[in-house]
């Protein structure tokens, strides 16, 4: 079956522009996560969606970051007024339970 997909795979943008990153989770998975991975750093938790509950946004680094999940499926992570320090790989994961997570291939964001 299809795994988690993310688009675009690469995104180059200029400082100050807004970007949208998309995640298509595995069908039927109720939990969806966004992480950020910078060079030489571990995965940094950003936000978590579980069913229809309010999302856990505790990992978002600033109010320039936001995410939504429509219809309990597709999710979009939006970064407004991008900064160079936002450059990283953004990973999405979904899970059917509170155990293993299934990750997408990531979106590599480069802010010039």
């Amino acid at each position, binding site marked *: 079956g299809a795994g988690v997909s993310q688009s675009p795979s690469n995104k180059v943008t200029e400082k100050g522009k807004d970007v949208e990153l998309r995640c298509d989770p595995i069908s039927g998975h109720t939990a969806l996560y966004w992480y950020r991975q910078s060079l030489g750093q*571990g995965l940094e938790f950003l936000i978590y969606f579980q069913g229809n509950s309010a999302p*856990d946004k505790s990992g978002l680094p600033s109010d320039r970051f936001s995410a939504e999940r429509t219809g309990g499926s597709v999710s979009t992570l939006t970064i407004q007024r991008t900064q160079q320090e936002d450059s990283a790989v953004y990973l999405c994961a979904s899970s059917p339970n509170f*155990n293993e997570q299934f990750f997408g*291939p*990531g979106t590599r964001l480069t802010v010039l």
Partner: protein
Amino acid sequence: SQKIEQNSEALNIQEGKTATLTCNYTNYSPAYLQWYRQDPGRGPVFLLLIRENEKEKRKERLKVTFDTTLKQSLFHITASQPADSATYLCALPLYSGAGSYQLTFGKGTKLSVIP
């Protein structure tokens, strides 16, 4: 504060030997611990989950131990192969402060299996 440490950034090992990776944590008592594998340019792939009441878990050539007294997990790959070369991440559920537990990942150990 709660910390997760994977002791080695990189580990080189000869093909056929057993690779042992370490994950230590402090100021926390997790209900379980997970190990993932990450290849360059790809997302992590789940390998094993071990619960606090389990001392050891095996899957094919993989073995994970969980010592809640030492606050340590060991990840072993027996009869290692060049295809096992990857970065291995341990992950623990930590309270996010917003009503849920979130997986917090170590920085990983890059394993290179030399033919």
